[in-house]
């Protein structure tokens, strides 16, 4: 069986871009958590999570965003989220994550958002 979830790491304008592919549920969320933890520990606290190939997210995946964001912002970084398909966006939105995170259309918009507001203004 093909890997149901993968993370493609790259760098864009000094930002760490994590491209998610497949589904993010209780089975695959630990891999995402490990990756975010690794970026944070390496001091790469300015992250863009690119979701155009993410087909599904459950609360286990959302929990990773929720559990790290305070520490990341305290360290001067942020997580900007981009490329959400409508059915994935509705999950973020219904829980109020769109008020908590900068959610933008694509990676260039996330790069620009980091220039305008390195940490989301709440």
């Amino acid at each position, binding site marked *: 069986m093909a890997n*149901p979830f993968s993370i493609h790491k790259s760098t864009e304008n000094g930002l760490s871009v994590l491209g998610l592919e497949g*589904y993010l*549920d*209780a*089975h695959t969320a630990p891999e995402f*958590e490990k990756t975010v933890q690794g970026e944070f520990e390496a001091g790469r606290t300015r992250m863009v999570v690119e979701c155009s190939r993410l087909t*599904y997210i*459950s*609360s*286990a995946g*959302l*929990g*990773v965003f*929720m*559990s*790290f*964001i*305070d*520490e990341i912002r305290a360290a001067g970084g942020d997580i900007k989220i981009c490329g959400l398909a*409508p*059915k994935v966006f*509705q*999950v973020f939105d*219904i*829980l*109020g*994550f769109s008020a*908590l995170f900068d959610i933008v259309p694509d990676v260039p918009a996330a790069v620009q958002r980091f220039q305008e507001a390195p940490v989301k203004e709440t």
Partner: protein
Amino acid sequence: MAWEREFALHVPSSTENLAMIRDFVKSIGTQSGMGDLEVAGLELAVDEACANVMEHAYAEDTSKEVKIRAMVDHDALQIEVIDTGKGFDPAMVEQLKLEDMVAAKRKGGLGMRLMKSFMDEVHYEVQPGVKNELKMVKKLHKATP
């Protein structure tokens, strides 16, 4: 109440089977005339219920089995998730604000909100170690001919 159609899926209690469970309910939702976003919400609600059973009621014991029943008639779809694990009282789930959950670095606690957001009714019948049953109902809004 007699349902027009009934379906059942029994899977070992392992989170790797959540994808199979989602495919099962997705087929039933689509066949019942639900729209794409509604089907996505149905998949999510059932995934959350089953993940709770696997991780909490059965504490990741893969020798246990999670049972999912789906019943459909012309105006509603009912899902039952059944286990014989330790169960929990949903009234005991803390209803914290999202900001407080972030401050507490919480990873869990969102599943119940999602189930209630996407389904019209959510009920628990808990008999720990005997039978715990979560029933969720989604009303079907079919176009009037």
